[in-house]
Protein backbone atom coordinates (compact mmCIF):
# COMPACT_ATOMS: atom_id res chain seq x y z
CA UNK A 1 0.00 0.00 0.00
CA UNK A 2 1.29 3.48 -0.71
CA UNK A 3 0.42 7.13 -0.34
CA UNK A 4 1.90 9.98 -2.34
CA UNK A 5 0.96 13.58 -1.55
CA UNK A 6 2.16 16.67 -3.32
CA UNK A 7 1.15 20.33 -3.14
CA UNK A 8 2.84 22.35 -5.83
CA UNK A 9 2.82 25.84 -7.26
CA UNK A 10 0.50 26.56 -10.19
CA UNK A 11 -1.71 24.37 -12.37
CA UNK A 12 -1.18 20.62 -12.48
CA UNK A 13 0.26 18.99 -15.56
CA UNK A 14 -2.06 16.97 -17.77
CA UNK A 15 0.03 13.96 -16.82
CA UNK A 16 -0.37 12.08 -13.57
CA UNK A 17 2.56 11.59 -11.29
CA UNK A 18 4.34 8.32 -12.00
CA UNK A 19 2.13 5.41 -11.08
CA UNK A 20 2.47 4.82 -7.38
CA UNK A 21 3.59 1.25 -7.74
CA UNK A 22 5.70 1.58 -10.87
CA UNK A 23 9.40 1.03 -10.27
CA UNK A 24 10.21 4.72 -9.95
CA UNK A 25 12.73 5.67 -7.27
CA UNK A 26 11.52 8.17 -4.70
CA UNK A 27 14.26 10.61 -5.65
CA UNK A 28 12.85 11.03 -9.14
CA UNK A 29 9.41 11.80 -7.72
CA UNK A 30 10.89 14.53 -5.57
CA UNK A 31 12.62 16.12 -8.54
CA UNK A 32 10.38 15.56 -11.57
CA UNK A 33 11.88 16.08 -15.01
CA UNK A 34 8.86 18.02 -16.32
CA UNK A 35 9.59 21.76 -16.49
CA UNK A 36 6.69 23.84 -15.26
CA UNK A 37 5.95 26.23 -12.40
CA UNK A 38 4.62 23.30 -10.41
CA UNK A 39 8.09 21.80 -10.09
CA UNK A 40 9.45 24.31 -7.63
CA UNK A 41 12.04 23.41 -5.04
CA UNK A 42 9.35 23.26 -2.41
CA UNK A 43 7.56 20.40 -4.12
CA UNK A 44 7.78 17.17 -2.25
CA UNK A 45 6.60 13.62 -2.17
CA UNK A 46 6.05 11.41 0.82
CA UNK A 47 5.72 7.85 1.88
CA UNK A 48 6.46 6.01 -1.29
CA UNK A 49 6.47 2.26 -1.29
CA UNK A 50 6.07 -0.38 -3.94
CA UNK A 51 2.98 -2.59 -3.66
CA UNK A 52 2.35 -5.47 -6.01
CA UNK A 53 0.82 -4.37 -9.31
CA UNK A 54 -0.95 -7.67 -9.84
CA UNK A 55 -3.40 -6.82 -7.05
CA UNK A 56 -4.80 -3.77 -8.85
CA UNK A 57 -8.14 -4.28 -10.57
CA UNK A 58 -9.34 -0.68 -10.66
CA UNK A 59 -7.75 2.73 -11.06
CA UNK A 60 -9.92 5.77 -10.53
CA UNK A 61 -8.72 9.29 -11.29
CA UNK A 62 -10.57 12.49 -10.40
CA UNK A 63 -9.39 15.86 -11.66
CA UNK A 64 -10.67 19.17 -10.36
CA UNK A 65 -10.69 21.93 -12.97
CA UNK A 66 -11.14 25.63 -12.31
CA UNK A 67 -14.50 26.76 -13.64
CA UNK A 68 -14.71 29.98 -15.61
CA UNK A 69 -17.21 31.50 -13.24
CA UNK A 70 -17.78 31.69 -9.54
CA UNK A 71 -21.18 32.55 -8.08
CA UNK A 72 -22.34 33.84 -11.44
CA UNK A 73 -19.31 36.06 -12.07
CA UNK A 74 -16.63 35.36 -14.65
CA UNK A 75 -13.23 34.65 -13.16
CA UNK A 76 -9.74 34.65 -14.57
CA UNK A 77 -8.32 32.23 -12.02
CA UNK A 78 -8.53 30.82 -8.53
CA UNK A 79 -5.80 31.52 -6.04
CA UNK A 80 -5.14 28.63 -3.65
CA UNK A 81 -3.60 29.24 -0.26
CA UNK A 82 -2.28 26.28 1.73
CA UNK A 83 -1.31 26.52 5.39
CA UNK A 84 1.88 24.50 5.45
CA UNK A 85 3.07 22.11 6.76
CA UNK A 86 -0.39 21.37 8.12
CA UNK A 87 -1.96 21.07 4.66
CA UNK A 88 0.46 18.38 3.53
CA UNK A 89 0.27 16.59 6.88
CA UNK A 90 -3.53 16.64 6.83
CA UNK A 91 -3.68 15.37 3.24
CA UNK A 92 -1.23 12.61 4.09
CA UNK A 93 -3.14 11.55 7.20
CA UNK A 94 -6.40 11.62 5.28
CA UNK A 95 -4.94 9.49 2.50
CA UNK A 96 -3.56 6.96 4.98
CA UNK A 97 -6.89 6.75 6.78
CA UNK A 98 -8.88 6.30 3.56
CA UNK A 99 -6.36 3.74 2.34
CA UNK A 100 -6.81 1.66 5.49
CA UNK A 101 -10.57 2.10 5.79
CA UNK A 102 -11.31 1.03 2.21
CA UNK A 103 -8.47 -1.50 1.92
CA UNK A 104 -7.01 0.28 -1.09
CA UNK A 105 -3.69 -0.37 -2.76
CA UNK A 106 -2.49 3.17 -3.45
CA UNK A 107 -3.54 6.81 -3.31
CA UNK A 108 -1.85 9.67 -5.12
CA UNK A 109 -2.96 13.23 -4.34
CA UNK A 110 -1.83 16.37 -6.12
CA UNK A 111 -3.08 19.84 -5.23
CA UNK A 112 -2.13 23.24 -6.53
CA UNK A 113 -1.20 26.26 -4.53
CA UNK A 114 -0.99 29.77 -5.90
CA UNK A 115 -2.83 30.87 -9.00
CA UNK A 116 -4.58 28.43 -11.36
CA UNK A 117 -6.25 29.82 -14.47
CA UNK A 118 -9.81 28.95 -15.48
CA UNK A 119 -9.77 25.69 -17.40
CA UNK A 120 -6.62 24.40 -15.70
CA UNK A 121 -6.33 21.51 -13.25
CA UNK A 122 -5.95 22.30 -9.58
CA UNK A 123 -6.52 18.89 -7.99
CA UNK A 124 -5.98 15.26 -8.89
CA UNK A 125 -6.80 12.20 -6.82
CA UNK A 126 -5.84 8.77 -8.15
CA UNK A 127 -6.93 5.63 -6.35
CA UNK A 128 -5.79 2.09 -7.06
CA UNK A 129 -7.76 -0.79 -5.60
CA UNK A 130 -8.58 -4.39 -6.18
CA UNK A 131 -12.19 -3.65 -7.10
CA UNK A 132 -14.15 -0.60 -8.29
CA UNK A 133 -16.63 -0.34 -5.42
CA UNK A 134 -14.08 0.52 -2.75
CA UNK A 135 -12.37 2.98 -5.09
CA UNK A 136 -15.62 4.80 -5.84
CA UNK A 137 -16.59 5.00 -2.17
CA UNK A 138 -13.11 6.13 -1.20
CA UNK A 139 -13.06 8.85 -3.84
CA UNK A 140 -16.24 10.45 -2.60
CA UNK A 141 -15.23 10.27 1.06
CA UNK A 142 -11.75 11.61 0.42
CA UNK A 143 -13.00 14.72 -1.37
CA UNK A 144 -15.72 15.43 1.19
CA UNK A 145 -13.25 15.18 4.05
CA UNK A 146 -10.59 17.19 2.26
CA UNK A 147 -13.02 20.06 1.75
CA UNK A 148 -13.84 19.95 5.45
CA UNK A 149 -10.50 19.29 7.14
CA UNK A 150 -7.53 20.23 4.96
CA UNK A 151 -6.36 23.83 5.38
CA UNK A 152 -6.49 24.96 1.78
CA UNK A 153 -8.49 28.02 0.77
CA UNK A 154 -9.37 29.30 -2.66
CA UNK A 155 -10.08 32.88 -3.65
CA UNK A 156 -11.57 33.92 -6.98
CA UNK A 157 -9.71 36.38 -9.15
CA UNK A 158 -12.39 38.07 -11.16
CA UNK A 159 -11.97 39.34 -14.71
Amino acid sequence: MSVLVRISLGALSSQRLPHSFSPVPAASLQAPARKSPSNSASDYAQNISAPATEQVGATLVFEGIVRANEQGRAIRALSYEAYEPMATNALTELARDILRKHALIAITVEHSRGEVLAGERSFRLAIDSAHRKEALAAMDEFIDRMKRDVPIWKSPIYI
Partner: protein
Amino acid sequence: MTIRVLIFGALAREMSCKEITIDVTAPVTVRDINQALAAKHPSKSAFFQSARLAVNHAFAAPGSPVQQGDAVALIELVGGG
Protein backbone atom coordinates in the same frame (compact mmCIF):
# COMPACT_ATOMS: atom_id res chain seq x y z
CA MET B 1 0.32 36.97 27.13
CA THR B 2 -0.19 37.88 23.50
CA ILE B 3 -1.33 35.27 20.99
CA ARG B 4 -1.35 35.76 17.23
CA VAL B 5 -4.09 33.81 15.48
CA LEU B 6 -3.55 33.36 11.75
CA ILE B 7 -6.61 33.63 9.52
CA PHE B 8 -7.06 32.74 5.86
CA GLY B 9 -9.32 32.81 2.84
CA ALA B 10 -12.64 34.61 2.85
CA LEU B 11 -12.33 35.52 6.53
CA ALA B 12 -8.97 37.20 5.95
CA ARG B 13 -10.39 39.08 2.99
CA GLU B 14 -13.43 40.16 4.95
CA MET B 15 -11.37 41.34 7.91
CA SER B 16 -8.64 42.81 5.71
CA CYS B 17 -5.88 41.17 7.74
CA LYS B 18 -3.97 37.91 8.00
CA GLU B 19 -3.90 37.56 11.75
CA ILE B 20 -5.78 38.59 14.86
CA THR B 21 -3.85 39.44 18.01
CA ILE B 22 -5.43 38.78 21.38
CA ASP B 23 -4.25 39.31 24.94
CA VAL B 24 -5.02 36.50 27.38
CA THR B 25 -3.88 35.57 30.85
CA ALA B 26 -1.97 32.33 31.32
CA PRO B 27 -2.72 29.48 31.66
CA VAL B 28 -4.54 29.50 28.34
CA THR B 29 -6.56 26.85 26.53
CA VAL B 30 -7.96 26.74 23.02
CA ARG B 31 -11.37 27.51 24.49
CA ASP B 32 -9.98 30.70 26.03
CA ILE B 33 -8.72 31.78 22.63
CA ASN B 34 -12.09 31.13 21.04
CA GLN B 35 -13.72 33.25 23.71
CA ALA B 36 -11.17 36.03 23.39
CA LEU B 37 -11.68 36.14 19.63
CA ALA B 38 -15.44 36.30 20.11
CA ALA B 39 -15.10 39.10 22.66
CA LYS B 40 -12.84 41.08 20.37
CA HIS B 41 -15.22 40.71 17.42
CA PRO B 42 -18.75 40.64 18.84
CA SER B 43 -20.36 40.86 15.41
CA LYS B 44 -18.86 37.42 14.69
CA SER B 45 -19.17 36.07 18.19
CA ALA B 46 -20.97 32.84 17.31
CA PHE B 47 -18.50 32.07 14.56
CA PHE B 48 -15.42 32.61 16.71
CA GLN B 49 -16.88 30.74 19.69
CA SER B 50 -17.04 27.52 17.68
CA ALA B 51 -14.28 28.03 15.11
CA ARG B 52 -11.74 25.22 14.85
CA LEU B 53 -8.24 26.15 15.88
CA ALA B 54 -4.98 24.46 15.07
CA VAL B 55 -2.06 24.66 17.48
CA ASN B 56 1.35 23.92 16.06
CA HIS B 57 -0.20 22.67 12.83
CA ALA B 58 -2.67 20.17 14.30
CA PHE B 59 -6.32 20.57 15.21
CA ALA B 60 -6.59 21.15 18.95
CA ALA B 61 -9.43 20.27 21.32
CA PRO B 62 -11.08 23.08 23.34
CA GLY B 63 -9.28 22.04 26.50
CA SER B 64 -5.82 21.86 24.95
CA PRO B 65 -3.24 24.19 26.49
CA VAL B 66 -1.65 26.96 24.47
CA GLN B 67 1.78 28.30 25.29
CA GLN B 68 3.45 31.56 24.41
CA GLY B 69 5.03 31.15 20.98
CA ASP B 70 2.73 28.37 19.76
CA ALA B 71 1.56 28.65 16.15
CA VAL B 72 -2.19 29.21 16.34
CA ALA B 73 -4.36 29.24 13.22
CA LEU B 74 -8.08 29.40 12.63
CA ILE B 75 -9.04 26.61 10.21
CA GLU B 76 -12.53 27.34 8.93
CA LEU B 77 -14.22 27.89 5.60
CA VAL B 78 -11.66 25.70 3.85
CA GLY B 79 -12.36 24.67 0.29
CA GLY B 80 -9.66 22.85 -1.56
CA GLY B 81 -10.14 20.91 -4.76
